[in-house]
């Protein structure tokens, strides 16, 4: 309920303040298990990706995020869990006995859709860094889940890391063809990287120095 109200507000704000140009929206997975992987530029990323989904599906769409950041204080944790629907992942493996991705496996087993940012942290806005391998473990464990790559542009311009001032820009969202686990980790990661390269070269963007 709270989550729906929050995302109705976000949908309106996204539509008005940003304005999205979405290519191939039909490729977005509507039912789980599925994994959405996107490049990470801004706190807006998760909210915009969630806002692309129909409201009725929201409860089954789970962004995966760093536990040390989103669950660092009680109110943040409450917000992250109940409003954003975040699945926490321990970045620094303090506890080596537990698999940090356990929550993700569970969600996929419950036919939910994960939103994952395989670059890890947001980093420098509008510049992609290397993909982390965690995603391939998920794909291996649940090979029936299609991995849908999404490349976004502009969100990091609108609200980069470390800024609280939202400056409106039209943003581009490119949804790619899903890939699935074929048995090899390197091959999978290279394939995913290749998809992202393709998506990011679909349009020439105005320089942002």
């Amino acid at each position, binding site marked *: 309920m709270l989550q729906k109200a929050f995302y109705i507000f976000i949908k309106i704000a996204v539509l008005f303040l940003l*304005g999205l*140009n979405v290519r191939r929206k039909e490729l977005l997975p509507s039912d789980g298990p599925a994994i959405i992987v996107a490049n990470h530029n801004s706190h807006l990323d998760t909210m915009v990706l969630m806002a692309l989904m129909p409201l009725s599906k929201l409860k089954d769409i789970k962004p995966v995020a760093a536990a040390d950041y989103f669950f660092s204080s009680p109110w943040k944790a409450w917000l992250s869990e109940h409003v954003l629907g975040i699945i926490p992942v321990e970045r620094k493996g303090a506890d080596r006995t537990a698999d940090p991705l356990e929550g993700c496996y569970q969600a996929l087993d419950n036919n939910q859709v994960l939103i994952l940012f395989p670059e890890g942290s947001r980093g420098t*806005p509008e510049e992609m860094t290397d993909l982390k391998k965690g995603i391939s473990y998920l794909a291996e464990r649940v090979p029936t889940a299609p991995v849908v790559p999404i490349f976004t542009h*502009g969100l990091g*311009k609108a609200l*980069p890391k470390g*800024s609280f*001032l939202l*400056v*409106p*820009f*039209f*943003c581009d969202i490119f949804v790619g063809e899903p890939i699935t686990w074929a048995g090899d980790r390197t091959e999978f990661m290279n394939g995913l990287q290749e998809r992202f390269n393709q998506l990011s070269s679909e349009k*020439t963007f*105005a*320089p*942002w*120095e």
Partner: protein
Amino acid sequence: MTLHAIHWALIGIWGLLAAASLIVYVLSKRSDKDLTELVQRTQSWWVMVAIFTLAFLVSNTISIVVFGLISFLALKEYFSMIPTRRADRRVLFWAYLSIPVQYFWVYDSYYGMFAVFIPVYMFLFLPFASLLSQQTDGFLKSVGTLNWGLMLCVFSISHAAFLLILPATEGSSAGGAGLLLFLVFLTQFNDVAQYTWGKMFGRRKIIPGVSPNKTWEGFLGGVGTTFVLAIVTAPLVTPFSIYHAAAAGLLIPVAGFIGDVTVSALKRDLGVKDTGSLIPGHGGILDRIDSLTFTAPLFFHFTRYFYY
């Protein structure tokens, strides 16, 4: 409710659009060419005319807000399209803030501030705000592109809104609303007319280096059609004498053409086909209002000089 001239004019526009839709419908059934874009364009026209009519009939304030929103969307499109500097994020924010201020002067009928706020205060303030980041690399380019965008998207378009608050005169009871309707209708009609004439008879290119689809046949055909329409409709909604109606009937299509090709040059420089994808069939909002960015200020000052 008694129908004023302005209502008849609006009914006329809806009628014209209905007729155009019918023609497009018949064409799309008969022709084996792909007319998807034309059909999309026509559908988008319905939406635009509906929004415009609604704003018009409800209140002046709503209309001013709608023009403010158009400026906002256009400026956002412009900023998303041009190269910008990271250091200028805050400056872009100030530029956005000038929109509510500029439209407040319109709402307040404060002509003095309306006329100078952007070209004096904003144009002087933005470079200063920009230098505060101490990044002088690309300073000139950044200041130039920013000011030009503000000029095109905010200052120019706000002139259309200012027409709205001009009072009724002896010659015409329709007042500012009539003038605005006259300007917007003729500007948009002229775009369609130039496009149609060009499609049907276009052969000799005017400036192929900027806009390869612009032909003398399209331009002159459009000017002629708009000229006739201006003379016919001016007595209905404007205080213009026949000579002034004729002058406006030339000013609007010629300025509209110049606005159109100016935005084309901009797009060509940036290597984009459309300024955006907001309006199906038309491209971005800047693609739709490109002519208006030139006709609005010129027509406004033409009218103000002779009648106010």
